[in-house]
């Protein structure tokens, strides 16, 4: 569990940097050095939910993972980390949807959003599965 928690701690830290960067740059030009179309994506109607930028929802998710991983690593408290699977699953599904929006509707890619999608995917596959947890308890 320890290695897994450290991995999640690092991944979610990168997610915090990514989403905070987008939060800070909101409303100002965002340089797009790898892809083209950051502004198209970040200013599209898909970039907000109920008036709140999606990056802030991402921030909340990464903060939750970071907190759960921090408790696991630094106080051997694994209960929170075991619950991370479900928000990670939701974030993974939402990320797939957002990448599809970039590919098929906006036809523009934002590198920061793609980085977040990759991080979310890694966090999802790295988070403890509820089934595995039961198996571990039984053995």
């Amino acid at each position, binding site marked *: 569990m320890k290695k897994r928690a450290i991995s999640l701690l690092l991944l979610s830290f990168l997610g915090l940097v990514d989403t905070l960067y987008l939060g800070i740059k909101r409303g100002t030009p965002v*340089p797009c050095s790898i892809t083209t179309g950051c502004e198209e994506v970040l200013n599209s109607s898909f970039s907000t939910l109920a008036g709140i930028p999606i990056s802030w929802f991402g921030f909340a998710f990464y903060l939750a993972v970071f907190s759960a991983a921090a408790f696991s690593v630094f*106080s051997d408290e694994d209960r929170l980390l075991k619950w991370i699977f479900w928000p990670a699953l939701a974030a993974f599904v939402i990320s797939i949807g957002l990448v599809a929006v970039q590919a098929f509707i906006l036809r523009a890619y934002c590198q920061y959003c793609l980085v977040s999608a990759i991080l979310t995917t890694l966090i999802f596959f790295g988070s403890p599965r509820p089934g595995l947890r039961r198996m571990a308890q039984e053995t």
Partner: protein
Amino acid sequence: MPKSKTTPFLVIIVGVLVAGGFAMYLSRQGSTSAGPTEGGSAAAQTGHVRGAPDAMISLVEYGDYQCPTCGLYHPILKELLNRYPGKFKLQYHHFPLVQMHSNAMGAALAAEAAADQGKFWEMHDLLFDRQREWGDLRQPHPNAEAVFVQYALQIGLDSNKFMQSMRSPATRDRVLADVTRGNAVVKGTPTFILDGQVVPNLPPIEWFVDYIERRLATSAQSGK
């Protein structure tokens, strides 16, 4: 070794603060990056000029009227022109990203058609100020041309002449000439060329102000 219960809380607070610091550092990269890079002088010719033609500092923009970043820079550039009258000029070139922006070429043609009646900058301002009205990506305006004609009427253009100009091959050639000129240097829109050198990243207004102030200071010192 027993672990303190407060340690995770400290880690979370420090983690968020460090992440915020990194994000802040990255967001300021544009303003702290090195100066402009060589290579833009050939692409920085002609174009529509705003500001005193003999202004010491010249900024060339390759822009797309439907590009949101260009729209964000529009008020920034106007602010610089207002702040440094006679010292700073803007040269605008078209670079419509037609594969991404369905109405960008039409908008560039509208600006050129307005130029035929001496009102390029009036149309330029309207196109950027109302970009969302005609340029929404998800719902490309079914008849953007009709919107451009409305804008032409608003700024006092002869609508028949405007339409003729918009549909004229010569107008399209002017836009395409800009694109050809910019091809060697433009990687995306907007691309800025400041005093003949390509500006890296997309710097905030403070970066431009800093550059202009340093140029003016240097000029004042050498003039003494």
